[in-house]
């Protein structure tokens, strides 16, 4: 994708992130809220990758340090993916457990732990 400016990616990422935020705000189904969080994570990933592609800092040429600086964005995305996978496994497990307990998953009703 030569010729696409960096800010186009960033704008797209901001749009996706904002839509994810709106979803978290207005949805009452925890699974969909969860999906919107995944959407926000992916928007952040897109920013990371766009920055890594178009704006990785040039250091001393050819050294290992420079190489690792170039890879920082991708490493962040790898870890975001790992964290998202763990999060989904535990989060969906929790939602299933709550459903089994209450037979209802409306997030506004989950207030039994409120003091």
């Amino acid at each position: 994708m030569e010729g696409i400016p960096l800010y186009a990616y960033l704008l797209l990422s901001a749009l996706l992130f904002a839509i994810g935020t709106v979803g978290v705000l207005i949805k009452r189904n925890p699974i969909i809220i969860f999906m919107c969080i995944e959407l926000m994570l992916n928007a952040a990933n897109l920013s990371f990758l766009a920055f890594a592609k178009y704006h990785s800092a040039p250091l001393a040429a050819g050294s290992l340090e420079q190489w690792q600086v170039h890879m920082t964005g991708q490493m962040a995305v790898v870890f975001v993916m790992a964290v998202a996978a763990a999060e989904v496994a535990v989060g969906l497990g929790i939602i299933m457990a709550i459903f089994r307990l209450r037979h209802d998953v409306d997030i506004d009703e989950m207030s039994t732990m409120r003091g």
Partner: protein
Amino acid sequence: MTLTTFAFLVMAVVLVLSAWGVVVAKSPVRSALSLVVNFFVLAFLYFGMNYDLLGISQILVYTGLIMMLFLFCILLLNLGAPDTLFEPSLIKRSLAWFVGGVLVLAVSSQVIGPMATWSTSTPTAPEGFGQAASVGQSLFTGWVYGFEIASVLLLVGIVGSILVAKRRD
């Protein structure tokens, strides 16, 4: 308009529309499918930026496994019917969309706007930096501690999800 610009625009439009679909769809299954489309197209955006490994991991991890888990969960809880949950009132919804719009405007004017002047459209990353070999190389040299911590996190995630999902009777 060059071919790449056109491709980017198409992907961007599909991404935004499918993300919007996640929020507005009435049935959770439709939401999840919309998100599947979103993640799938996002992978192609990564391919376009020469991120071979991350693009394919995006398809494998997000569309292949995570979204499948979501769909499975939705069907298992029988949330497929649209009328299982009530939507919040119109005022709340419009307020949320307003907040979202403000977020986009603020970020684009204050953060991305100034960048438009100093960032060009020529990539500065070196050749072959998105390939499996280079990602693996740096994952196992510079970021090996993070990698190990992530693996421990995944292990804890496995154990935790088994414990949470287990029946206690």
